[in-house]
Protein backbone atom coordinates (compact mmCIF):
# COMPACT_ATOMS: atom_id res chain seq x y z
CA UNK A 1 0.00 0.00 0.00
CA UNK A 2 1.39 3.38 -1.01
CA UNK A 3 0.50 6.61 0.74
CA UNK A 4 1.52 10.07 -0.40
CA UNK A 5 5.03 10.75 0.99
CA UNK A 6 4.17 14.44 1.35
CA UNK A 7 2.34 13.31 4.51
CA UNK A 8 5.80 12.96 6.08
CA UNK A 9 5.86 16.76 6.02
CA UNK A 10 2.18 17.56 6.47
CA UNK A 11 1.60 15.46 9.61
CA UNK A 12 4.40 16.95 11.75
CA UNK A 13 3.72 20.50 10.56
CA UNK A 14 0.04 20.13 11.48
CA UNK A 15 1.05 18.62 14.83
CA UNK A 16 3.46 21.51 15.49
CA UNK A 17 0.66 24.03 14.91
CA UNK A 18 -1.61 22.07 17.25
CA UNK A 19 0.87 22.02 20.13
CA UNK A 20 0.64 25.72 21.19
CA UNK A 21 -3.12 25.77 20.57
CA UNK A 22 -3.69 22.67 22.71
CA UNK A 23 -1.31 24.01 25.37
CA UNK A 24 -3.80 26.81 26.01
CA UNK A 25 -6.28 24.22 27.30
CA UNK A 26 -4.22 21.29 28.50
CA UNK A 27 -0.46 20.86 28.66
CA UNK A 28 -0.96 17.22 29.57
CA UNK A 29 -2.54 16.59 26.15
CA UNK A 30 -0.16 18.90 24.29
CA UNK A 31 2.92 16.96 25.40
CA UNK A 32 1.64 13.84 23.60
CA UNK A 33 1.05 15.55 20.24
CA UNK A 34 4.69 15.48 19.00
CA UNK A 35 4.89 11.79 19.84
CA UNK A 36 1.67 11.16 17.93
CA UNK A 37 3.04 13.21 15.02
CA UNK A 38 6.16 11.06 14.92
CA UNK A 39 4.09 7.88 15.13
CA UNK A 40 2.09 9.18 12.15
CA UNK A 41 5.34 9.73 10.23
CA UNK A 42 6.47 6.21 11.18
CA UNK A 43 3.20 4.81 9.85
CA UNK A 44 3.63 6.64 6.52
CA UNK A 45 7.22 5.51 6.03
CA UNK A 46 6.26 2.00 7.13
CA UNK A 47 3.52 1.79 4.49
CA UNK A 48 5.75 3.22 1.76
CA UNK A 49 8.89 1.27 2.63
CA UNK A 50 8.01 -1.79 0.56
CA UNK A 51 7.64 0.37 -2.56
CA UNK A 52 11.21 1.64 -2.16
CA UNK A 53 12.35 -1.82 -3.33
CA UNK A 54 10.90 -0.89 -6.74
CA UNK A 55 12.52 2.56 -6.88
CA UNK A 56 11.49 6.03 -5.74
CA UNK A 57 8.10 6.95 -4.25
CA UNK A 58 7.13 10.30 -5.74
CA UNK A 59 4.53 12.99 -5.31
CA UNK A 60 3.73 16.45 -6.66
CA UNK A 61 2.41 19.39 -4.68
CA UNK A 62 -0.23 21.99 -5.52
CA UNK A 63 -1.26 20.26 -8.73
CA UNK A 64 1.82 21.51 -10.58
CA UNK A 65 3.97 18.91 -12.30
CA UNK A 66 7.72 19.29 -11.89
CA UNK A 67 9.67 21.38 -12.67
CA UNK A 68 6.88 23.94 -12.15
CA UNK A 69 5.87 22.70 -8.72
CA UNK A 70 7.77 21.24 -5.81
CA UNK A 71 8.09 17.49 -6.09
CA UNK A 72 8.79 14.87 -3.46
CA UNK A 73 11.19 12.17 -4.66
CA UNK A 74 11.67 9.64 -1.87
CA UNK A 75 14.46 7.50 -3.27
CA UNK A 76 15.65 4.27 -1.60
CA UNK A 77 18.56 6.16 0.02
CA UNK A 78 16.32 9.02 1.16
CA UNK A 79 13.65 6.59 2.39
CA UNK A 80 16.17 4.55 4.40
CA UNK A 81 17.52 7.70 6.02
CA UNK A 82 14.04 9.08 6.70
CA UNK A 83 13.05 5.81 8.39
CA UNK A 84 16.21 5.95 10.51
CA UNK A 85 15.65 9.58 11.50
CA UNK A 86 12.05 8.93 12.55
CA UNK A 87 13.22 5.87 14.48
CA UNK A 88 15.83 7.90 16.38
CA UNK A 89 13.32 10.65 17.21
CA UNK A 90 10.86 8.04 18.50
CA UNK A 91 13.66 6.47 20.53
CA UNK A 92 14.39 9.84 22.15
CA UNK A 93 10.79 10.71 22.97
CA UNK A 94 9.65 7.22 24.01
CA UNK A 95 12.68 6.87 26.32
CA UNK A 96 11.35 9.85 28.29
CA UNK A 97 7.81 8.49 28.75
CA UNK A 98 6.91 8.24 32.41
CA UNK A 99 10.11 10.01 33.50
CA UNK A 100 10.93 13.58 34.26
CA UNK A 101 10.73 15.67 31.11
CA UNK A 102 13.12 18.31 32.38
CA UNK A 103 12.14 21.93 31.89
CA UNK A 104 10.01 22.83 28.87
CA UNK A 105 9.09 19.24 28.06
CA UNK A 106 6.45 20.24 25.50
CA UNK A 107 8.81 22.57 23.64
CA UNK A 108 11.56 19.96 23.75
CA UNK A 109 9.47 17.19 22.24
CA UNK A 110 8.05 19.57 19.62
CA UNK A 111 11.55 20.61 18.58
CA UNK A 112 12.68 16.97 18.37
CA UNK A 113 9.79 16.42 15.97
CA UNK A 114 10.56 19.57 13.96
CA UNK A 115 14.28 18.80 13.65
CA UNK A 116 13.26 15.37 12.37
CA UNK A 117 10.76 16.93 9.95
CA UNK A 118 13.49 19.16 8.55
CA UNK A 119 15.87 16.23 8.21
CA UNK A 120 13.24 14.03 6.56
CA UNK A 121 12.25 16.90 4.25
CA UNK A 122 15.86 17.37 3.16
CA UNK A 123 16.23 13.73 2.19
CA UNK A 124 12.92 13.33 0.34
CA UNK A 125 12.51 16.62 -1.50
CA UNK A 126 13.16 16.84 -5.23
CA UNK A 127 13.52 20.62 -5.20
CA UNK A 128 16.74 22.39 -4.28
CA UNK A 129 15.24 25.54 -2.77
CA UNK A 130 12.83 23.39 -0.79
CA UNK A 131 15.90 21.58 0.55
CA UNK A 132 17.22 24.95 1.79
CA UNK A 133 13.91 25.65 3.56
CA UNK A 134 14.05 22.25 5.29
CA UNK A 135 17.69 22.92 6.19
CA UNK A 136 16.54 26.08 7.94
CA UNK A 137 13.74 24.24 9.76
CA UNK A 138 16.34 21.77 11.00
CA UNK A 139 18.74 24.56 12.01
CA UNK A 140 16.12 26.56 13.90
CA UNK A 141 14.85 23.48 15.76
CA UNK A 142 18.49 22.57 16.43
CA UNK A 143 19.23 25.95 18.02
CA UNK A 144 16.20 25.65 20.32
CA UNK A 145 17.19 22.09 21.28
CA UNK A 146 20.78 23.15 21.93
CA UNK A 147 19.55 25.97 24.19
CA UNK A 148 17.75 23.56 26.52
CA UNK A 149 19.99 22.65 29.48
CA UNK A 150 20.48 19.28 31.10
CA UNK A 151 18.76 18.80 34.46
CA UNK A 152 21.76 19.64 36.64
CA UNK A 153 23.61 22.08 34.41
CA UNK A 154 23.93 25.57 35.82
CA UNK A 155 26.95 26.74 33.88
CA UNK A 156 25.28 28.11 30.75
CA UNK A 157 27.05 25.58 28.51
CA UNK A 158 23.77 25.13 26.66
CA UNK A 159 23.56 28.82 25.73
CA UNK A 160 27.11 28.82 24.47
CA UNK A 161 26.36 25.85 22.21
CA UNK A 162 23.09 27.42 21.02
CA UNK A 163 24.67 30.81 20.26
CA UNK A 164 27.60 29.33 18.38
CA UNK A 165 25.35 26.99 16.37
CA UNK A 166 22.88 29.81 15.61
CA UNK A 167 25.63 31.88 13.98
CA UNK A 168 27.58 29.06 12.31
CA UNK A 169 24.42 27.22 11.20
CA UNK A 170 23.05 30.50 9.77
CA UNK A 171 26.23 31.08 7.78
CA UNK A 172 26.09 27.47 6.54
CA UNK A 173 22.51 27.82 5.33
CA UNK A 174 23.15 31.02 3.42
CA UNK A 175 26.32 29.70 1.79
CA UNK A 176 24.20 26.78 0.60
CA UNK A 177 21.65 29.28 -0.71
CA UNK A 178 24.40 31.14 -2.59
CA UNK A 179 25.38 27.81 -4.20
CA UNK A 180 21.74 27.19 -5.10
CA UNK A 181 21.57 30.64 -6.70
CA UNK A 182 24.61 29.91 -8.86
CA UNK A 183 23.24 26.52 -9.92
CA UNK A 184 19.87 28.09 -10.77
CA UNK A 185 21.64 30.76 -12.82
CA UNK A 186 23.49 28.05 -14.74
CA UNK A 187 20.60 25.64 -15.32
CA UNK A 188 17.41 27.77 -14.98
CA UNK A 189 15.76 25.15 -12.78
CA UNK A 190 15.48 24.26 -9.12
CA UNK A 191 14.31 20.70 -9.74
CA UNK A 192 17.28 18.51 -8.79
CA UNK A 193 16.57 15.86 -11.45
CA UNK A 194 16.17 18.46 -14.20
CA UNK A 195 19.28 20.24 -12.95
CA UNK A 196 21.17 16.95 -13.17
CA UNK A 197 20.00 16.51 -16.76
CA UNK A 198 21.40 19.93 -17.70
CA UNK A 199 24.87 19.69 -16.18
CA UNK A 200 26.36 19.31 -19.65
CA UNK A 201 25.74 23.03 -20.26
CA UNK A 202 27.19 24.11 -16.92
CA UNK A 203 30.35 26.17 -16.80
CA UNK A 204 33.05 24.36 -14.79
CA UNK A 205 33.95 27.54 -12.88
CA UNK A 206 30.33 28.07 -11.79
CA UNK A 207 30.02 24.41 -10.84
CA UNK A 208 33.28 24.57 -8.89
CA UNK A 209 32.20 27.70 -6.99
CA UNK A 210 28.81 26.16 -6.21
CA UNK A 211 30.57 23.01 -4.99
CA UNK A 212 32.84 25.05 -2.72
CA UNK A 213 29.86 26.92 -1.22
CA UNK A 214 27.87 23.72 -0.69
CA UNK A 215 30.89 21.84 0.63
CA UNK A 216 31.31 24.50 3.32
CA UNK A 217 27.56 24.87 3.98
CA UNK A 218 26.57 21.21 4.12
CA UNK A 219 30.02 20.33 5.51
CA UNK A 220 29.26 22.49 8.56
CA UNK A 221 25.97 20.64 9.08
CA UNK A 222 27.66 17.27 8.52
CA UNK A 223 30.37 18.20 11.06
CA UNK A 224 33.24 17.70 8.59
CA UNK A 225 36.78 18.76 9.52
CA UNK A 226 37.72 21.62 9.85
CA UNK A 227 34.14 22.96 9.94
CA UNK A 228 33.00 21.20 13.11
CA UNK A 229 34.17 23.42 15.98
CA UNK A 230 30.55 24.30 16.79
CA UNK A 231 29.47 20.69 17.19
CA UNK A 232 31.50 20.00 20.30
CA UNK A 233 30.07 23.12 21.98
CA UNK A 234 26.58 21.74 21.33
CA UNK A 235 27.36 18.18 22.48
CA UNK A 236 29.02 19.48 25.65
CA UNK A 237 26.07 21.53 26.81
CA UNK A 238 22.96 19.74 25.60
CA UNK A 239 20.71 16.89 26.71
CA UNK A 240 21.41 13.34 25.57
CA UNK A 241 18.37 13.43 23.27
CA UNK A 242 19.62 16.62 21.62
CA UNK A 243 23.06 15.08 21.12
CA UNK A 244 21.39 12.03 19.55
CA UNK A 245 19.35 14.22 17.19
CA UNK A 246 22.42 16.22 16.14
CA UNK A 247 24.55 13.15 15.50
CA UNK A 248 21.95 11.03 13.72
CA UNK A 249 19.36 13.38 12.21
CA UNK A 250 20.76 16.87 11.57
CA UNK A 251 24.25 15.74 10.64
CA UNK A 252 23.02 12.88 8.47
CA UNK A 253 20.68 15.21 6.58
CA UNK A 254 23.60 17.56 5.86
CA UNK A 255 25.72 14.63 4.70
CA UNK A 256 22.92 13.34 2.46
CA UNK A 257 22.51 16.76 0.84
CA UNK A 258 26.25 17.04 0.24
CA UNK A 259 26.35 13.57 -1.32
CA UNK A 260 23.21 14.15 -3.41
CA UNK A 261 24.57 17.37 -4.91
CA UNK A 262 28.11 16.04 -5.34
CA UNK A 263 27.12 12.72 -6.95
CA UNK A 264 24.14 13.78 -9.04
CA UNK A 265 24.75 17.40 -10.06
CA UNK A 266 28.15 18.94 -9.37
CA UNK A 267 30.36 15.85 -9.75
CA UNK A 268 29.18 15.17 -13.33
CA UNK A 269 29.48 18.91 -14.14
CA UNK A 270 33.13 19.03 -13.10
CA UNK A 271 34.88 16.42 -15.18
CA UNK A 272 37.37 14.10 -13.53
CA UNK A 273 37.66 12.89 -9.94
CA UNK A 274 38.15 16.32 -8.34
CA UNK A 275 34.91 16.31 -6.31
CA UNK A 276 35.25 12.70 -5.14
CA UNK A 277 38.92 13.20 -4.18
CA UNK A 278 38.11 16.26 -2.05
CA UNK A 279 35.30 14.37 -0.26
CA UNK A 280 37.40 11.21 0.16
CA UNK A 281 40.41 12.85 1.77
CA UNK A 282 38.31 15.43 3.66
CA UNK A 283 36.34 12.50 5.10
CA UNK A 284 39.50 10.59 6.00
CA UNK A 285 40.96 13.68 7.75
CA UNK A 286 37.68 14.15 9.66
CA UNK A 287 37.75 10.50 10.74
CA UNK A 288 41.26 10.74 12.15
CA UNK A 289 40.57 14.12 13.78
CA UNK A 290 37.32 12.92 15.40
CA UNK A 291 38.77 9.70 16.75
CA UNK A 292 41.96 11.37 18.06
CA UNK A 293 39.96 14.14 19.77
CA UNK A 294 37.58 11.58 21.29
CA UNK A 295 40.57 9.65 22.66
CA UNK A 296 41.81 12.73 24.55
CA UNK A 297 38.37 13.76 25.90
CA UNK A 298 37.62 13.47 29.59
CA UNK A 299 33.94 14.49 29.33
CA UNK A 300 31.79 11.69 27.94
CA UNK A 301 29.41 13.99 26.06
CA UNK A 302 32.39 15.42 24.21
CA UNK A 303 33.90 11.97 23.72
CA UNK A 304 30.75 10.61 22.07
CA UNK A 305 30.38 13.90 20.15
CA UNK A 306 33.88 13.63 18.71
CA UNK A 307 33.15 9.97 17.99
CA UNK A 308 30.15 11.10 15.91
CA UNK A 309 32.38 13.57 14.06
CA UNK A 310 34.72 10.66 13.30
CA UNK A 311 31.81 8.60 11.99
CA UNK A 312 30.75 11.46 9.69
CA UNK A 313 34.26 11.44 8.26
CA UNK A 314 34.15 7.67 7.84
CA UNK A 315 30.80 7.89 6.03
CA UNK A 316 31.98 10.64 3.69
CA UNK A 317 35.10 8.66 2.82
CA UNK A 318 33.10 5.44 2.31
CA UNK A 319 30.65 6.91 -0.18
CA UNK A 320 33.39 8.85 -1.96
CA UNK A 321 35.35 5.73 -2.84
CA UNK A 322 32.80 5.73 -5.63
CA UNK A 323 32.31 1.96 -5.92
CA UNK A 324 29.49 -0.40 -5.00
CA UNK A 325 31.34 -1.62 -1.92
CA UNK A 326 31.92 1.98 -0.80
CA UNK A 327 28.19 2.78 -0.98
CA UNK A 328 27.29 -0.54 0.71
CA UNK A 329 29.71 0.32 3.50
CA UNK A 330 28.29 3.84 3.85
CA UNK A 331 24.68 2.68 4.14
CA UNK A 332 25.48 -0.04 6.69
CA UNK A 333 27.66 2.32 8.74
CA UNK A 334 24.80 4.85 8.81
CA UNK A 335 22.38 2.18 10.06
CA UNK A 336 24.90 1.00 12.66
CA UNK A 337 25.52 4.54 13.90
CA UNK A 338 21.81 5.36 14.06
CA UNK A 339 21.20 2.31 16.26
CA UNK A 340 24.24 2.50 18.53
CA UNK A 341 24.77 6.21 19.20
CA UNK A 342 21.37 7.14 20.73
CA UNK A 343 21.67 3.97 22.87
CA UNK A 344 25.10 5.08 24.12
CA UNK A 345 24.00 8.67 24.75
CA UNK A 346 20.92 7.56 26.72
CA UNK A 347 22.76 5.03 28.90
CA UNK A 348 25.71 7.38 29.47
CA UNK A 349 23.31 10.18 30.50
CA UNK A 350 21.60 7.82 32.93
CA UNK A 351 24.91 6.81 34.52
CA UNK A 352 26.03 10.44 34.79
CA UNK A 353 22.72 11.99 35.79
CA UNK A 354 24.05 13.06 39.20
CA UNK A 355 26.83 15.13 37.68
CA UNK A 356 26.46 18.79 36.84
CA UNK A 357 28.36 20.08 33.80
CA UNK A 358 30.87 17.63 32.37
CA UNK A 359 30.36 13.90 32.91
CA UNK A 360 33.72 12.18 33.56
CA UNK A 361 34.46 8.57 32.69
CA UNK A 362 34.31 7.52 36.30
CA UNK A 363 30.55 8.16 36.23
CA UNK A 364 30.37 4.74 34.56
CA UNK A 365 32.43 3.05 37.27
CA UNK A 366 30.67 -0.02 38.62
CA UNK A 367 27.66 0.43 36.34
CA UNK A 368 27.41 -3.35 35.94
CA UNK A 369 26.38 -3.50 39.62
CA UNK A 370 24.50 -0.19 39.96
CA UNK A 371 22.49 -0.65 36.76
CA UNK A 372 23.16 -4.11 35.26
CA UNK A 373 20.68 -3.90 32.39
CA UNK A 374 21.92 -0.44 31.37
CA UNK A 375 25.53 -1.61 31.63
CA UNK A 376 24.97 -4.62 29.38
CA UNK A 377 23.06 -2.59 26.79
CA UNK A 378 25.74 0.09 26.80
CA UNK A 379 28.43 -2.54 26.33
CA UNK A 380 26.55 -3.94 23.33
CA UNK A 381 26.27 -0.38 21.94
CA UNK A 382 30.00 0.23 22.38
CA UNK A 383 30.98 -3.06 20.73
CA UNK A 384 28.52 -2.41 17.90
CA UNK A 385 30.01 1.05 17.33
CA UNK A 386 33.53 -0.37 17.14
CA UNK A 387 32.32 -2.92 14.60
CA UNK A 388 32.28 -6.21 16.49
CA UNK A 389 30.13 -8.90 14.83
CA UNK A 390 27.22 -9.31 14.65
CA UNK A 391 26.41 -5.64 14.05
CA UNK A 392 25.63 -3.48 10.99
CA UNK A 393 28.89 -1.57 11.61
CA UNK A 394 30.84 -4.85 11.27
CA UNK A 395 29.39 -5.39 7.80
CA UNK A 396 29.94 -1.71 7.00
CA UNK A 397 33.62 -1.87 7.91
CA UNK A 398 33.98 -5.18 6.06
CA UNK A 399 32.71 -3.61 2.83
CA UNK A 400 34.73 -0.46 3.51
CA UNK A 401 38.02 -2.34 3.77
CA UNK A 402 37.02 -4.43 0.79
CA UNK A 403 36.11 -1.33 -1.26
CA UNK A 404 39.25 0.60 -0.30
CA UNK A 405 41.42 -2.46 -0.98
CA UNK A 406 39.91 -3.26 -4.37
CA UNK A 407 40.33 0.42 -5.37
CA UNK A 408 43.96 0.19 -4.22
CA UNK A 409 43.47 3.07 -1.78
CA UNK A 410 46.16 1.80 0.57
CA UNK A 411 46.63 5.13 2.36
CA UNK A 412 42.90 5.07 3.16
CA UNK A 413 43.21 1.47 4.42
CA UNK A 414 46.02 2.63 6.73
CA UNK A 415 43.91 5.53 8.02
CA UNK A 416 40.98 3.16 8.64
CA UNK A 417 43.17 0.77 10.64
CA UNK A 418 44.66 3.58 12.76
CA UNK A 419 41.21 5.15 13.33
CA UNK A 420 39.65 1.83 14.35
CA UNK A 421 42.47 1.13 16.83
CA UNK A 422 42.06 4.59 18.42
CA UNK A 423 38.28 4.08 18.52
CA UNK A 424 38.67 0.69 20.22
CA UNK A 425 41.07 2.34 22.70
CA UNK A 426 38.77 5.05 24.02
CA UNK A 427 35.56 3.02 23.80
CA UNK A 428 37.37 0.16 25.55
CA UNK A 429 38.04 2.54 28.45
CA UNK A 430 34.28 2.97 28.81
CA UNK A 431 33.80 -0.82 29.05
CA UNK A 432 36.66 -1.04 31.56
CA UNK A 433 34.91 1.53 33.78
CA UNK A 434 31.52 -0.17 33.44
CA UNK A 435 32.94 -3.42 34.86
CA UNK A 436 35.18 -1.76 37.47
CA UNK A 437 33.14 -2.47 40.61
CA UNK A 438 34.09 -0.65 43.82
CA UNK A 439 32.72 -0.93 47.34
CA UNK A 440 30.96 2.43 47.20
CA UNK A 441 28.89 1.54 44.11
CA UNK A 442 25.31 2.68 44.66
CA UNK A 443 22.22 1.34 42.94
CA UNK A 444 21.03 3.48 40.03
CA UNK A 445 18.04 1.71 38.49
CA UNK A 446 17.22 2.29 34.82
CA UNK A 447 13.79 3.88 34.17
CA UNK A 448 11.45 1.37 32.52
CA UNK A 449 10.86 3.30 29.28
CA UNK A 450 14.56 3.91 28.74
CA UNK A 451 15.28 0.25 29.42
CA UNK A 452 12.64 -0.94 26.94
CA UNK A 453 13.88 1.41 24.20
CA UNK A 454 17.47 0.34 24.88
CA UNK A 455 16.42 -3.29 24.53
CA UNK A 456 14.72 -2.46 21.21
CA UNK A 457 17.96 -0.85 19.93
CA UNK A 458 20.02 -3.86 21.06
CA UNK A 459 17.55 -6.23 19.35
CA UNK A 460 17.77 -4.24 16.09
CA UNK A 461 21.59 -4.25 16.24
CA UNK A 462 21.61 -8.06 16.53
CA UNK A 463 18.80 -8.52 14.00
CA UNK A 464 20.46 -6.49 11.24
CA UNK A 465 23.89 -7.79 12.22
CA UNK A 466 22.80 -11.43 11.93
CA UNK A 467 20.43 -11.00 8.98
CA UNK A 468 21.52 -8.05 6.78
CA UNK A 469 20.06 -9.93 3.78
CA UNK A 470 16.69 -8.13 3.54
CA UNK A 471 18.57 -4.84 3.09
CA UNK A 472 20.54 -6.23 0.14
CA UNK A 473 18.07 -5.29 -2.62
CA UNK A 474 17.46 -1.77 -1.36
CA UNK A 475 21.19 -1.13 -0.94
CA UNK A 476 21.74 -2.22 -4.55
CA UNK A 477 19.20 0.45 -5.56
CA UNK A 478 21.06 3.02 -3.45
CA UNK A 479 24.23 2.13 -5.36
CA UNK A 480 22.45 2.77 -8.68
CA UNK A 481 20.90 5.95 -7.33
CA UNK A 482 24.25 7.46 -6.32
CA UNK A 483 26.60 6.11 -8.96
CA UNK A 484 24.30 6.37 -11.99
CA UNK A 485 22.82 9.91 -12.13
CA UNK A 486 20.47 8.81 -14.93
CA UNK A 487 18.63 6.58 -12.46
CA UNK A 488 17.83 9.56 -10.24
CA UNK A 489 16.90 11.70 -13.24
CA UNK A 490 14.37 9.06 -14.37
CA UNK A 491 12.85 8.91 -10.88
CA UNK A 492 12.85 12.69 -10.40
CA UNK A 493 11.28 13.78 -13.67
CA UNK A 494 7.85 12.47 -12.75
Amino acid sequence: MTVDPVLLIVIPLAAAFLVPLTSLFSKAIARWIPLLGLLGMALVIGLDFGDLYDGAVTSTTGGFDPPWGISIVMTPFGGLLAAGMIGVALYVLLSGVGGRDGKNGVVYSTMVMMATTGGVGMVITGDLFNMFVFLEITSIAGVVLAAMPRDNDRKGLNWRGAAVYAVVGGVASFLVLAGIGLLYGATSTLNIAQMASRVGDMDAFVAGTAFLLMLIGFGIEAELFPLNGWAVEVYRGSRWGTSSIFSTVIGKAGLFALLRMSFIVIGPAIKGDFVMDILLWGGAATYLFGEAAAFTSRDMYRMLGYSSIGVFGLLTASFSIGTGDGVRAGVLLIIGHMLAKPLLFSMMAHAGRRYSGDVPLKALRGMIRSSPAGALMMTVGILALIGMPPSPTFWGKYFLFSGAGSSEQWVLVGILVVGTVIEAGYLGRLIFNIFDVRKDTRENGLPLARGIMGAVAVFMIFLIGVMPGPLHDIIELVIRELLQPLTYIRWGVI
Partner: protein
Amino acid sequence: MNGHELVFYGGIMALLAVGIWAVLSRRNLIKAIMGLAIIETAVNLLLVAVGYVSGRSAPIVGGDTGIGSSPVGGVVDPVPQALVLTAIVISLATTALALVAAIGYYKHTGTLDLKSFSYGRTDEKEVRK
Protein backbone atom coordinates in the same frame (compact mmCIF):
# COMPACT_ATOMS: atom_id res chain seq x y z
CA MET B 1 30.62 41.15 -17.85
CA ASN B 2 28.86 44.51 -18.37
CA GLY B 3 28.75 47.50 -15.99
CA HIS B 4 25.60 46.42 -14.18
CA GLU B 5 26.92 42.94 -13.53
CA LEU B 6 30.23 44.33 -12.35
CA VAL B 7 28.48 46.49 -9.76
CA PHE B 8 26.22 43.60 -8.68
CA TYR B 9 28.85 40.89 -8.37
CA GLY B 10 31.52 43.28 -7.00
CA GLY B 11 29.07 44.40 -4.30
CA ILE B 12 28.15 40.80 -3.49
CA MET B 13 31.79 39.77 -3.11
CA ALA B 14 32.54 42.80 -0.92
CA LEU B 15 29.52 42.19 1.34
CA LEU B 16 30.29 38.49 1.60
CA ALA B 17 33.91 39.22 2.53
CA VAL B 18 32.87 41.74 5.22
CA GLY B 19 30.29 39.32 6.66
CA ILE B 20 32.60 36.32 6.76
CA TRP B 21 35.40 38.44 8.25
CA ALA B 22 33.01 39.65 10.98
CA VAL B 23 31.86 36.12 11.85
CA LEU B 24 35.38 34.70 11.91
CA SER B 25 37.24 37.50 13.66
CA ARG B 26 34.80 39.11 16.11
CA ARG B 27 34.78 37.73 19.64
CA ASN B 28 31.60 39.63 20.48
CA LEU B 29 28.46 37.62 19.73
CA ILE B 30 26.40 40.63 18.61
CA LYS B 31 29.07 41.60 16.08
CA ALA B 32 29.18 38.00 14.82
CA ILE B 33 25.39 38.08 14.38
CA MET B 34 25.75 41.37 12.47
CA GLY B 35 28.24 39.56 10.23
CA LEU B 36 25.65 36.83 9.67
CA ALA B 37 23.07 39.47 8.68
CA ILE B 38 25.53 40.98 6.18
CA ILE B 39 26.17 37.53 4.66
CA GLU B 40 22.40 37.04 4.31
CA THR B 41 22.10 40.38 2.51
CA ALA B 42 24.94 39.45 0.17
CA VAL B 43 23.26 36.16 -0.75
CA ASN B 44 19.89 37.85 -1.31
CA LEU B 45 21.61 40.31 -3.63
CA LEU B 46 23.23 37.39 -5.46
CA LEU B 47 19.83 35.79 -6.05
CA VAL B 48 18.43 39.05 -7.46
CA ALA B 49 21.52 39.43 -9.65
CA VAL B 50 21.11 35.91 -11.03
CA GLY B 51 17.62 36.73 -12.28
CA TYR B 52 18.37 40.25 -13.49
CA VAL B 53 18.09 40.99 -17.20
CA SER B 54 19.31 44.41 -18.31
CA GLY B 55 16.56 46.74 -19.55
CA ARG B 56 13.61 44.69 -18.28
CA SER B 57 11.09 45.69 -15.63
CA ALA B 58 9.82 44.24 -12.35
CA PRO B 59 8.02 40.89 -12.75
CA ILE B 60 4.50 42.19 -12.05
CA VAL B 61 2.25 41.48 -15.01
CA GLY B 62 -0.53 44.03 -15.69
CA GLY B 63 -1.61 46.73 -13.26
CA ASP B 64 -1.89 50.49 -13.73
CA THR B 65 1.17 51.61 -11.84
CA GLY B 66 3.36 51.75 -14.89
CA ILE B 67 5.95 49.55 -13.20
CA GLY B 68 4.34 46.31 -14.12
CA SER B 69 2.73 47.09 -17.40
CA SER B 70 5.24 45.09 -19.41
CA PRO B 71 4.23 41.90 -21.16
CA VAL B 72 5.57 38.66 -19.77
CA GLY B 73 8.57 38.68 -22.09
CA GLY B 74 9.69 42.11 -20.86
CA VAL B 75 10.28 41.29 -17.23
CA VAL B 76 13.23 39.93 -15.29
CA ASP B 77 13.20 36.31 -14.04
CA PRO B 78 10.59 36.23 -11.23
CA VAL B 79 11.76 33.00 -9.58
CA PRO B 80 14.85 34.42 -7.80
CA GLN B 81 12.75 37.30 -6.50
CA ALA B 82 10.30 34.85 -4.96
CA LEU B 83 13.25 32.99 -3.45
CA VAL B 84 14.60 36.23 -1.98
CA LEU B 85 11.24 36.96 -0.32
CA THR B 86 11.34 33.54 1.36
CA ALA B 87 15.00 33.94 2.28
CA ILE B 88 14.36 37.34 3.89
CA VAL B 89 11.63 35.85 6.10
CA ILE B 90 13.90 32.96 7.07
CA SER B 91 16.83 35.28 7.80
CA LEU B 92 14.59 37.34 10.09
CA ALA B 93 13.83 34.19 12.09
CA THR B 94 17.44 33.02 12.24
CA THR B 95 18.71 36.46 13.30
CA ALA B 96 16.05 36.76 15.99
CA LEU B 97 16.86 33.29 17.30
CA ALA B 98 20.59 34.00 17.32
CA LEU B 99 19.92 37.16 19.35
CA VAL B 100 17.82 35.17 21.83
CA ALA B 101 20.72 32.74 22.23
CA ALA B 102 23.09 35.70 22.72
CA ILE B 103 20.82 37.11 25.46
CA GLY B 104 20.72 33.70 27.17
CA TYR B 105 24.50 33.46 26.98
CA TYR B 106 24.88 36.97 28.43
CA LYS B 107 22.49 36.26 31.31
CA HIS B 108 24.46 33.18 32.34
CA THR B 109 27.98 34.45 31.84
CA GLY B 110 27.75 38.25 32.13
CA THR B 111 29.63 38.66 28.87
CA LEU B 112 29.04 38.50 25.11
CA ASP B 113 32.65 37.56 24.52
CA LEU B 114 32.84 33.95 23.32
CA LYS B 115 36.53 33.57 24.04
CA SER B 116 36.43 34.74 27.66
CA PHE B 117 34.00 31.93 28.54
CA SER B 118 35.33 29.78 31.34
CA TYR B 119 34.27 26.15 31.48
CA GLY B 120 35.53 26.09 35.05
CA ARG B 121 36.66 23.01 36.87
CA THR B 122 35.11 19.75 35.80
CA ASP B 123 32.46 19.27 38.40
CA GLU B 124 32.94 15.75 39.62
CA LYS B 125 30.98 16.15 42.82
CA GLU B 126 27.67 14.47 42.72
CA VAL B 127 24.72 16.73 43.16
CA ARG B 128 22.94 15.63 46.30
CA LYS B 129 19.28 15.28 45.66
